[in-house]
């Protein structure tokens, strides 16, 4: 239990520092990356490249073990089908991302800067997710 929570804390910390180092936490940098029709700054492609390189090499190695260190099994999605929710949801997410330049990980790390903008965005983001749950989840 303690191992699992400590692992999550430290991985979150490394993840957050990485987002800040990469400048994903700077919405102006993100919008400059998405603005291919304007003064395009392709830097953030290198964030994706670096992160993916580690995952593509490491994932098969990690999965070769039967179980993670602090749990009895891996909790990995198994669905492979494409549906309207996946594509429609991703499109809505992309529209919001392209308006303000924040996505969930970076904006939460940016809370640590102690400035107002990320706080407002996170509040709206949490409300948006719960709105989706209320409107569209049947259970």
């Amino acid at each position, binding site marked *: 239990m303690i191992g*699992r929570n400590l*692992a*999550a*804390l430290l*991985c*979150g*910390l*490394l*993840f*957050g*520092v*990485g*987002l*800040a*180092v*990469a*400048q994903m936490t*700077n*919405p102006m940098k993100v919008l400059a990356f998405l*603005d291919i*029709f304007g*003064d*395009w*700054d392709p*830097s953030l492609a290198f964030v*994706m490249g*670096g992160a*993916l390189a580690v*995952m593509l090499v490491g*994932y098969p190695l990690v999965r070769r073990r039967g179980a*993670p*260190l*602090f749990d009895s099994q891996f909790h990995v*999605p198994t669905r*492979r089908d*494409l549906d309207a*929710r*996946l*594509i429609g949801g991703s499109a809505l*997410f*992309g*529209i919001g*991302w*392209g*308006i*303000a330049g*924040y*996505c969930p990980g970076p904006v*939460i*790390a940016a*809370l640590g800067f102690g400035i107002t903008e990320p706080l*407002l*965005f996170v509040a*709206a*983001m*949490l*409300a*948006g997710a719960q709105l*989706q*749950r209320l409107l569209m989840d049947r259970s």
Partner: protein
Amino acid sequence: MENFTPFSALAGGLMIGSAALLLLALSGRIAGVSGIVNGAIENPGSDRTWRLAFVLGLVAGGSLYLLVWPQGVTVREGFPTGWLIAAGLLVGFGTRLGSGCTSGHGVCGIGRLSPRSLVATLTFMVAGVLSTAVTRHLLGVGQ
């Protein structure tokens, strides 16, 4: 292209990838931030604790960076609040509906060669580019 920063971007990306891989190896979990956050709000009991720990780590990561290198933090001024809130609502609604965001689909999902995540990532990248083009250049938001 005067602000091109490939080296810090690559260094940050390697840290992000390592963090995601470590979380999988230690806890068996996908480092998808939208899913972790929504689960922290919606799931009861012990499943909530590790999620809150991860979120706390993320925020602490931002603070640690600010502490070590304050000149690396740029604050945006004057972005319209209405657009900021609308964007937040769309990101929250969309990532929950689409089961993931830049980290869960873009890094972890493509990293494990998931066809769903590949399609999701292409979709939000294209939508993001079009959205920035329209809101910045046609509507003049934040300019």
